């Protein structure tokens, strides 16, 4: 089976999301085509369906709160379109191996400074998640329970502790960077795979053509 690199998967997901977002409003037939594409993408990435459904369910509640006030057909269309975008992005995110998020973020086609920020943020999020996991395990091992006031207090204490730990950690990481010659510019080396880039261009053209044809600009 065709194996795509993390970068290509990220870029393709983004292109699909952008193309979906640009479909002409109320053009249901094209939306249906994108539903099929999103489902194929989800199957191709071997996304764990149970987790995906849970995520989509939670996101759908939030989406409906925002879209329903628009009323009727428009809200329906917007919700389905957003759901397709979420399906594509969630499928990608769930297919990223643990701790590989910041590796994947390298594939974002952004200006260098922005890319530095995104990568460091990705790395920071992974560290935060690890810290949260450690705290959760530690609390569980000491049989965390009690009334809601107590649990709120514990959550607040954990968030505070997380903040202090992350500050401390950030200082030490910065020191480590400075010692190895960091002078404000992050040295990033991104491998450019020519065949993958070519594939990306071809697929982008195909997908964008599909989206633009939803406006029927080719017909006349």
């Amino acid at each position: 089976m065709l194996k795509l690199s993390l970068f290509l998967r990220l870029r393709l997901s983004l292109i699909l999301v952008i193309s979906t977002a640009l479909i002409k409003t109320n053009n249901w037939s094209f939306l249906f085509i994108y539903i099929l594409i999103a489902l194929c993408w989800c199957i191709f990435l071997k996304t764990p369906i149970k987790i995906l459904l849970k995520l989509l369910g939670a996101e759908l509640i939030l989406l409906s709160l925002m879209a329903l006030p628009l009323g009727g057909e428009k809200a329906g269309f917007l919700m389905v379109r957003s759901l397709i975008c979420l399906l594509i992005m969630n499928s990608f995110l769930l297919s990223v191996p643990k701790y590989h998020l910041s590796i994947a973020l390298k594939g974002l086609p952004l200006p260098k400074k922005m890319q530095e920020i995104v990568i460091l943020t990705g790395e920071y999020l992974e560290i935060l998640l690890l810290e949260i996991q450690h705290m959760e395990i530690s609390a569980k091992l000491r049989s965390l329970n009690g009334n809601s006031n107590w649990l709120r207090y514990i959550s607040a204490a954990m968030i505070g502790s997380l903040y202090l730990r992350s500050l401390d950690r950030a200082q030490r990481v910065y020191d480590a960077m400075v010692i190895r010659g960091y002078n404000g510019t992050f040295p990033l080396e991104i491998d450019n795979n020519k065949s993958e880039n070519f594939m990306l261009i071809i697929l982008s053209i195909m997908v964008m053509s599909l989206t633009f044809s939803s406006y029927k600009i080719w017909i006349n």
Partner: protein
Amino acid sequence: MDKLDQKKSVIITVDNIKFDYEKQSILQGISFNLKAGERVALLGRTGAGKSTLLNNLIGLKFPQKGEIIIDGLKLEKKNIADIRKNIGFAFQNPEDQLFMPTILEDVMFGLLNYKIPASIAKEKARFLLDKFGLIAYENRSSHELSGGQKRLAALASILALEPNILILDEPTNGLDPAWRKKLAEILLNLPIKVILIASHDLNWVKKTTQRALILDQGQIQLDQSIISLFQQESVLESYGLPLDW
């Protein structure tokens, strides 16, 4: 050896440095020299100021009094970049040192900062990872490595810059005996002029260093050969360093 030669072989000179932090005197007049070819252990109980002293040596903190001369250069803000090129510093927690998306990029980080061409930096980084048995992990995140592997990856990221001086803060923290042995073997074969190791792991420093400095109450209380120090168990205990514990 004449006087000139003796002076030449001194790589690090610490002269009467004093460092206060929040009105508390951490270092109170520390002086010592480290000569080429020496592997030195910096010992002392927790909170004795070992990490503060190391941070002063690398210019992460500056002493309020006294001076530090490294490889003939006085440690000052204006020449800190030149001095740091010469010093490899390993933090107590290797995770602090591994912040790039992949291990390979972590090892390349310093080289690219010093404008080494990417292809050469990559080749050098891969060579070091191969030497440390981490080549299979080159495109993985540091979070996927074991404690020992993280320690070696952090060491590789430092050694890539080919420093003359290596300073290690608690390098055996969290390592099992096999990894401690491996780390010792690697350190003993490094082509580095001076190695300074701050540690509580007495048995390990006994095997890896030749000289010991004991830091207590903000001062160097003892400076002698590691062999003779280990023959004085009561001295070690008096500085909060009991053997076999």
